[in-house]
């Protein structure tokens, strides 16, 4: 078996079976979902079952459908309204609230009242309003002999499409979606570079300080060991991301089933409370369909790999410079961490203003392009710029692994004495 493969295998297996890895991989999505579900859970915890007594004097609303936590009862229609208004909580089993729908015209639904001890929540109120409004709408349409579709046509939806005219082709654009998508891709790469780059650095430091390094490099070339470690840890990262994607999908399905009621509640509420919001969502969905996901994904993978290899090899070189004291390495790690941080700040600026010289340069320089370019691509980047960026990315990867290899093979055996920056530069270019 090839020795580099053997090293990759060890680096991978020893990390993947660690308890900390398994826990982080399993709990990551749970944590993520907890945060995203928090509003629902809080709302849920806050909500009691509400039994509402309904008296409908209009005859227009013969039934109100129950929903999670809301139960409607049509009883005691013969008892006078004024009695019900005061005695709803003691009549029969006792009710939490009393909803009174007076005699009214379907086009003038005035005087609907709800009585309760405590303020009825906004969601409850919105829900009842939307159901009644729906029923009245149907009745009104029938009375005027109107088709709902005609009604909708009377007020056509006005929507300005933004078209991007850069380069050869015109693309459908949606600034909000593009920046969200780009930001997401750039941000994931940023996280990967920091977490797994640091993991490579720690791995190298561990080999150096435990002195195993001397045994290993009397069996393989230092470069093989360095690359084996970088690839192995890269695969660990990939595994974690795939596992997260998988787990989040599964958890979403489970939660969808468990909380189906509550979720549809929320949707109904939003449907009635804000038609505007709903439109925005449908619009977003349509724009999503226009996004060439396959193309973005392949770009993402290219920059993911390129960026990871560039920064992982830099971090490997830094790890090899570490002395026996923990603090030494910070001097060298700081500039590289700064490069990543600066890149993410540039990325944040660039998704707001995607067509500036800063955006251009940051997207082709290999130290920042892995974070900046994926964020720019949804805004439309000319093909020649992408090609140039990828060529430079590849060149940068070759160059940094070469330099890192040179630093690594010398520094990995240096103990005791503190290594100066000047020396490091000498190793890079001197035989």
């Amino acid at each position, binding site marked *: *078996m090839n*020795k580099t493969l*053997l*090293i990759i295998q*060890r680096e991978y297996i*020893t990390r993947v079976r660690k308890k900390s890895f398994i826990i982080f991989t399993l709990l990551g999505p749970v944590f993520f979902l907890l945060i995203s579900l928090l509003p629902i859970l809080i709302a849920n915890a806050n909500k009691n079952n509400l039994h509402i007594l309904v008296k409908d004097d209009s005859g227009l609303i013969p039934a109100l459908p129950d929903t999670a936590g809301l139960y409607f009862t049509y009883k005691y229609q013969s008892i006078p309204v004024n009695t019900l208004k005061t005695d709803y909580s003691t009549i029969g089993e006792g009710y939490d609230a009393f909803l009174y729908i007076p005699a009214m015209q379907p086009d003038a639904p005035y005087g609907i009242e709800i009585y309760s001890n405590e303020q009825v929540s906004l969601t409850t109120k919105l829900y009842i309003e939307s159901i009644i409004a729906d029923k009245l709408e149907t009745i009104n349409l029938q009375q005027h002999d109107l088709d709902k579709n005609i009604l909708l046509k009377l007020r056509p939806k006005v929507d300005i499409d933004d078209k991007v005219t850069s380069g050869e082709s015109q693309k459908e654009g949606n600034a909000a979606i593009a920046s969200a998508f780009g930001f997401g891709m750039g941000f994931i790469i940023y996280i990967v570079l920091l977490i797994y780059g640091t993991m490579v650095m720690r791995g190298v430091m561990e*080999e150096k300080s*435990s*002195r*195993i*390094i*001397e*045994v*290993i*490099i*009397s*069996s*393989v070339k230092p470069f093989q060991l360095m690359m084996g470690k970088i690839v192995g840890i890269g695969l660990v990262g990939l595994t974690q991301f795939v596992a997260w994607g998988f787990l989040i999908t599964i958890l979403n399905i489970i939660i969808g089933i468990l909380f189906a009621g509550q979720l549809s509640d929320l949707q109904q509420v939003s449907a009635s409370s804000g038609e505007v919001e709903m439109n925005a969502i449908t619009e977003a969905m349509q724009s999503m369909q226009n996004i060439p996901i396959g193309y973005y994904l392949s770009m993402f993978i290219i920059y993911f790999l390129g960026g990871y290899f560039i920064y992982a090899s830099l971090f490997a070189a830094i790890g090899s410079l570490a002395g026996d004291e923990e603090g030494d390495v910070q001097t060298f790690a700081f500039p590289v961490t700064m490069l990543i941080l600066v890149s993410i700040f540039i990325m944040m600026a660039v998704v707001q203003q995607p067509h500036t010289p800063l955006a251009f340069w940051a997207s082709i320089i290999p130290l920042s392009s892995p974070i900046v370019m994926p964020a720019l691509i949804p805004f439309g980047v000319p093909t020649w710029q992408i090609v140039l960026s990828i060529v430079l990315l590849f060149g940068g990867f070759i160059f940094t692994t070469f330099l890192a290899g040179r630093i690594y*093979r010398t520094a990995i*055996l240096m103990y005791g004495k503190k290594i100066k920056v000047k*020396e490091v530069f*000498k190793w890079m270019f001197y035989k």
Partner: protein
Amino acid sequence: MGDIMTFSQVNKRFSDVQALQDVSFTIPENTIFGLLGPNGAGKTTLIRIITKIFAADSGHIVFDGSDIQTQQYANIGYMPEEKGMYKKMKVGEHLVYLGRLKGLKKSAAQERSKYWLEKLGAGDWWNKKLEDLSKGMQQKTQFIATVLHNPKLLILDEPFSGLDPVNAEMIKNEIYQLHQQGTTIIFSTHRMEQVEEICKTIALINKGKLILNGEVATIKQQFKQHKFLISFESLPEIEDNDLFTVDQINGQSVTVQLKSKNDQNQVLQYFISRNAIINAYYEILPSLNDIFISIVNKANHE
């Protein structure tokens, strides 16, 4: 008997230090070879060149008929002075991993790891984590990792440091056995009593230069100071004379320093003629330690 290994004009320079300077010597076949020198003399540099960790600036090292740079890693086994390991790994998988890095197949690596663990009385360690072992146990594991792939050349840097006498003896016996089986062994240390016990031939390096090389017995002869110890039944009176001076008196024994070499028989006659009863009479050879110190001191004064 031929030479298994030849060093010719080996040079290595680190930015401001000449670590090795024109080092040339040979290692005869079928010996345990001692590589000696004070700290910082260049021993580790030389070993790292042999183990192909880095290359010499100039000069050649030939092992078993071919240049060291063309040797397979599999032919060499190296146990560094600072013995490292992946602490989180289990003994078995650690050994198998290192064996496979040396080119062993997985099955062979497993088989031999088990064989060696049994041999060193550690058959039940397979699933123990290295960090849970005592230091001596860890060192046994490291020794096994070094010899697992049956290297033709075995380099041991201070193999006994940190071992208790029982384990040191055990490892020493294994070294002898490997030597019997034809493994060339380079043994690097600054513990001279171990060298005298184990090595037949040595090279002494100081400040990057070879200052002494040859068989231990020959070197001792070369550095002998013509001292003899005479043990008497009862201590006679000794006057000043032309033959010898008294170096030391210890109970019934006297150490004498000959004034000119090859006069040992006259010394014996001197006492016999004075009716002294002699129980023992033998030459005192310098220890390697004495030679080492005197040479290094001399070299450092130059």
